[in-house]
């Protein structure tokens, strides 16, 4: 499996990662090698095998629909990069 530089650019965009042009080639090589390793999976026929999503095949536990969390907005916003009047600030999205 060979991943080209253009494909790394596409994946990086999907992953919301800004990758320096200088690093693209080394990522392409690394990703190709990792996918070669992963390709070993094809050696085994898995027709009819159920995918395993949990070690005990447990199902998601549900809780009662009631409020359990207390309001800690101030504590949580104190660690944010930029807030104002209880809101998180980001660059303007709509002109």
């Amino acid at each position: 499996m060979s991943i080209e530089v253009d494909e790394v650019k596409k994946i990086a965009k999907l992953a919301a990662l800004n990758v320096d042009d200088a690093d693209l080639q080394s990522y392409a090589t690394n990703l190709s090698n990792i996918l070669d390793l992963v390709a070993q999976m094809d050696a085994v026929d898995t027709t009819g095998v159920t995918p395993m999503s949990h070690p005990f095949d447990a199902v998601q536990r549900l809780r009662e629909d009631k409020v359990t969390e207390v309001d800690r907005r101030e504590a949580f916003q104190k660690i944010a990069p930029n807030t104002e009047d209880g809101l998180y600030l980001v660059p303007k999205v709509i002109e």
Partner: protein
Amino acid sequence: MSNYHTKTVTELSAMLQAGEVSSVELTRYFLDRIKNSDDKLNSFITVCEEQAMVQAKESDEKLKTGNAPALTGVPIAHKDIFCTDGVKTSCGSKMLDSFISPYDATVVTNMRNAGVVMLGKTNMDEFAMGSSNETSFYGAVKNPWNLKAVPGGSSGGSAAAVGARLAPASTGTDTGGSIRQPAAFCGITGLKPTYGRVSRFGMIAFASSLDQAGPMGQSASDCALLLNAMAGFDDKDSTSIEKSVPDYSADLNKPLDGLRIGLPKEYFEHTEGGMNAEVEATIKAALDQYKAMGAELIEIELPNSGLSVPVYYVVAPAECSTNLSRFDGVRYGYRCEDPKDLNDLYTRSRGEAFGAEVQRRIMVGTYALSSGYYDAYYLKAQKLRHLISDDFTKAYEKVDVIMAPATPETAFNIGEKTDDPISMYLSDIYTIAVNLAGIPAMSIPVGFANNSSGVSMPVGMQIIGNHFEEAKLLNVAHQYQQKTDWHKQMPEEFQ
């Protein structure tokens, strides 16, 4: 002259309970040890001197009442992956360099309720992604047995700190071997419990279906005490298991007569990248010791175990790419300077703050989950995961525990594998299958073998159990540690 660092948690706990030492004295002693020696190791990211002394004083008050829990006043270190209220929680990343957690992880709460004093937060591979502790934003950790060698990873700081006795014990997390491999490299005892046994709440997520926290200490007896405090159902973790916690210390002294030990033939075959001859000889000597103690050695098969590494490098990156999407530079963590728009804010914050290994894994995961590839990668891996897990289920019909090397070789040198991610990944070939199956496993020190530079370094052996068989693993490990003293060896430089 006091020599508290030569004492296990089990011994320190007894001394505290008997009033032979105070928690304040003990905590001061280990804080001084960290201050004097950690320059050599870089095993701590944060030392919590003030808080530790406050907690120590509280512990001494509790001890005076005469009914304080067993671990009251024992100082330990937490891996910096666990959120600690009011204390920096970096996860080894530039992304969280300024992150002061507003809450405690359940593990931290449970340990505090059990009376433990927190000395500080240990260094680790960035977001627990690595096998050598070299991906940390805070620099590599050194192995206390040889400062040129890695301590293993991702819980490398925790392992090095305990190996050098800068802390009597520590917590770690294990997604593909991150407790067992560094425990092996640093000559200590580590336990990865059954998936869901210990709460993941407040433990920064890497691969949610594999992540599990566990204790790292000097002996099986110590790990039992620590697991007693860590384990338990938590309704804040949706995959936490609703099952009562046994007393893990209760079975330690059971004799091993008739114990059936399975030896996976695939792990003992001579293949490229498999265990080297010196490690093999050391493991065989340990198995002979078990035979002498009344155990029976039985060859078993784990035919799909060879696929563990490829399966893991789909499942773990896929889950990591999802989990790490929360780091967007908006609510917490690193934000780039002068973002020109929202997309620039996201992509530049992430690109600047994640290290290369984390970015590689995010990209592999993103690719594997992207439209058109999901079936070929993630679904295929989940199917193979079932086969790997079934292999263990079948094996446990014939044996009580499985034994295997923890690593193919002893601790390699810093820089030796950094240029080749695949060779780094393969250092976890013996540990990964356990995470995929969700079963518990330990690594215990069983001797020494030369590494690739000819330096004698600790060898770890894994003891792998069926689901919820932690007590049996601890019993099997403890009995060995009653007959041998590998777990008591200490690196010369830190004696």
